[in-house]
């Protein structure tokens, strides 16, 4: 079992590599199809169901700049699988090179606790949490664009900023109860 490390390989010129991890293997394909159309950088997409990745392709695999965990809120399994996969990432990734993408959040039959669990997970790991619509083509394009913004920063293709800096601004936070009460009081 090997950890996936963010800086173990040299980067390619003007290239960004993203790893999409989704248990259902459904939305990732749609996202990938849109993301590779990006013109400003060469986007390489790798798809996986869960981590760890097979050792066989270790040599040929480029440096992964961003790991995206796609969680379908409709299924408990999707969340558990993402949680289990997190263990196979080197700590260095959590400095701005991991993000969570949640689908089906608008569905009424989603239990509120699951949403809460994802939120807690993302905030504990200091990762951004994105919401996406996976049913419509517009939603997919939108989600892909948002990922590309993060990806370009994470791959170092945007001057004057770094992934760590960006993640400080975009990471998911949940205010503790005490803070919430304070802000209510202020208002």
């Amino acid at each position, binding site marked *: 079992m090997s950890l996936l490390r963010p800086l173990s390989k040299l980067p390619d010129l003007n290239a960004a590599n993203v*790893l999409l991890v989704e*248990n*259902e*293997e*459904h939305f990732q*394909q749609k996202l*990938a*199809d849109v993301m*590779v159309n990006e013109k400003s950088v*060469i*986007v*390489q*997409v*790798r*798809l*996986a*169901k*869960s981590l760890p*990745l*097979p050792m066989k*392709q270790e040599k040929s*695999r480029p440096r992964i700049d961003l790991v995206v965990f796609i969680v379908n809120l409709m*299924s408990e*399994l999707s969340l558990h699988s993402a949680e289990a996969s997190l263990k196979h990432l080197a700590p260095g990734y959590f400095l701005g090179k991991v993000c969570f993408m949640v689908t089906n959040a608008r569905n009424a039959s989603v239990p509120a606790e699951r949403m809460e669990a994802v939120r807690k997970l993302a905030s504990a790991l200091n990762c951004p949490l994105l919401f996406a619509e996976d049913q419509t083509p517009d939603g997919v394009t939108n989600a892909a664009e948002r990922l590309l913004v993060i990806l370009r920063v994470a791959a170092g293709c945007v001057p004057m900023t770094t992934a760590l800096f960006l993640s400080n601004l975009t990471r998911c936070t949940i205010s503790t109860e005490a803070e919430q009460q304070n802000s209510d009081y202020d208002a």
Partner: protein
Amino acid sequence: MDDLKRRLLQRIIRTMPTQMLKTTLSKWARLNIEQQESLDFTQPKFLLTDQLLALCGESGLGVKHITELEMIYIIDNPNQRLWHAYQLLEAGDDAHSVEVTNFKEQFKVHLTELIRHVSIKIKKHTDEAVWIRIAWGDRSSRPNHLKPTYVVHHLQTPYVFVTNLTSKTMPLLSQALVMATRYSSMKDANLSGRNLSAVRDLLMKQFQQVFPSKHLQPLGKKNQINSNPQIEREQDEQSETRLQIACEAFGGGTLPELQKAIYTLETKLKDNTNKIMTEREQPFRCVVTFKSTNILESLRHSAMTGIASTPVTPMLSSISQKGRNHFLITDKGPGPQRKL
């Protein structure tokens, strides 16, 4: 008698879509061409029924002929009913030499011997299947044509497909069928579905089956289609294996359409401290039903995507491998009840 004729015709016309009416009537061929052409298919169905009834009176057609019309319609559209499969056991020596006329005769004779008030109609369909329509009567009442039982049997096969059969008439039918086909008994095959051809294909194993092999067959063509060099699947091999396992369990290609899979668990409480519950006569029952428009396809898909764990449990895979969708699971151990 006229009232019965009217009600029967009304019911047939009501269930049939208007587009089907014309072709079915011409297939029926009881009305001559002028009569068929005089029918106006654009008018409401109740007017059409009246017109048809008048024409039947003109040509002297009775209940018998109208049931024929129903039969033609059912043969062409068998998928609106729930079909149960039965299996004939222990073939006699001459079971393979039964032919249609002989079968017809024997079946009629045996069934009328068992019950006096019964109306039987037998028709041989083009695909070697024998269709039997039975209207059951009581000891004192005439055959009820409004609730007929349909039986489909392919000669020289041990399977019978039945729809609309009550437990009261079941032994009669089973006895007559067993005698006519020269088998010694008939049992429930625990398979039912709305699609007759699917039920038949599943029992006779007429769907693409995949056998275990160490070398992956090029089943996963779907994955090779996206040949975009910028997208790479890291776990292609795993998904390929899952696909192979799923196809081994449920079969490849398009699968027969089944609507339900029902599992009934019967068990007894085993607890030394709780005597009352342990000594209870009746077992505890738990029924799990899977429903889908195509249950086999759904199960295969969930095994393929990893929602159901692989290797697939024999509980699920025996739907296609044993050809049944009702399962009774009982406690292991001595006893005649154990079935799975």
